[in-house]
């Protein structure tokens, strides 16, 4: 049967304006999941094809972006050879303490305005590439797409405590990458001290 046969014409007409509107969001989500442009494009295309085939099941008035993310994520998980290694969900408390340590280091290195003073794009991309997809997903949903913890947990199919742990861990690792990047650029305790002396 032609997939379009069981889809009402009016719903088909909506697909372009309602669903394709979220192409940039889905493309970005796919990119963060796969970390490969070609794979991300394929995943994005497959997502919209699947969405089109299931368009009659989409309930108007509900969040189409979330619906598309769910399809995208399910396709990704299905196609991905799941890693067999054990991935522990870090204690959010540990991550909070680690976050505070990083902040203290940044202050010690005179990096108070780190995020405003440096082009941190390359370091962020490098840090993201090193994260597990589950952690990248938490960052994307909450830090870019503005999902609440509850919404992100629902989208990822995990308890809210898990999404919180993943988010905190991902942020901590990204900050660690930024700190290392700053050090590579020549920031050091010595230069920070020298700057303070000059300032005083």
């Amino acid at each position: 049967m032609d997939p379009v046969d069981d889809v009402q014409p009016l719903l088909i007409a909506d697909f372009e304006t309602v669903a394709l509107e979220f192409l940039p969001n889905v493309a970005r989500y796919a990119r963060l999941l796969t970390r490969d442009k070609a794979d991300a494009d394929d995943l994005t295309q497959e997502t919209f094809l699947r969405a089109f085939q299931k368009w009659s099941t989409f309930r108007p008035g509900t969040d189409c972006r979330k619906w598309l993310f769910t399809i995208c994520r399910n396709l990704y998980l299905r196609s991905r050879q799941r890693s067999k290694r054990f991935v522990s969900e870090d204690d959010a408390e540990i991550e909070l303490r680690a976050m505070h340590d990083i902040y203290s280091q940044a202050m010690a290195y005179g990096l108070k305005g780190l995020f405003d003073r440096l082009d941190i794009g390359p370091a962020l991309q490098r840090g993201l590439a090193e994260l597990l997809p589950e952690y990248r997903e938490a960052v994307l949903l909450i830090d870019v797409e503005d999902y609440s913890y509850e919404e992100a947990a629902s989208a990822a199919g995990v308890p809210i405590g898990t999404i919180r742990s993943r988010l905190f861990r991902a942020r901590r690792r990204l900050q660690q990458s930024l700190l290392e990047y700053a050090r590579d650029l020549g920031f050091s305790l010595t230069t920070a001290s020298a700057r303070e002396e000059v300032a005083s």
Partner: protein
Amino acid sequence: MTTHNDALMSCEHVIRLLWEYLDNELDDERRLRVRQHLDGCEHCREHFTFEGAFLRALATHLDEATDTATLRGRIVDALRVEGYRDRLSATG
């Protein structure tokens, strides 16, 4: 870390709530208590400012515009095969 004012949350407690505060995940009462602490604690205020700048930088860099024009054309072509042609020919 110290408690700057016995009537307020301790610095340790406030730092524990840092991400949830910045993510707007706290209820009104806890949000207010954190706010009150920050009003009187420069150390924590600077820490929150630092982490807030990090979140803004993160969102900005990850939200960079993606050129999806080519991808959109590719998807539309694939949708045509799926029976999308009537809608597309009607809209050009």
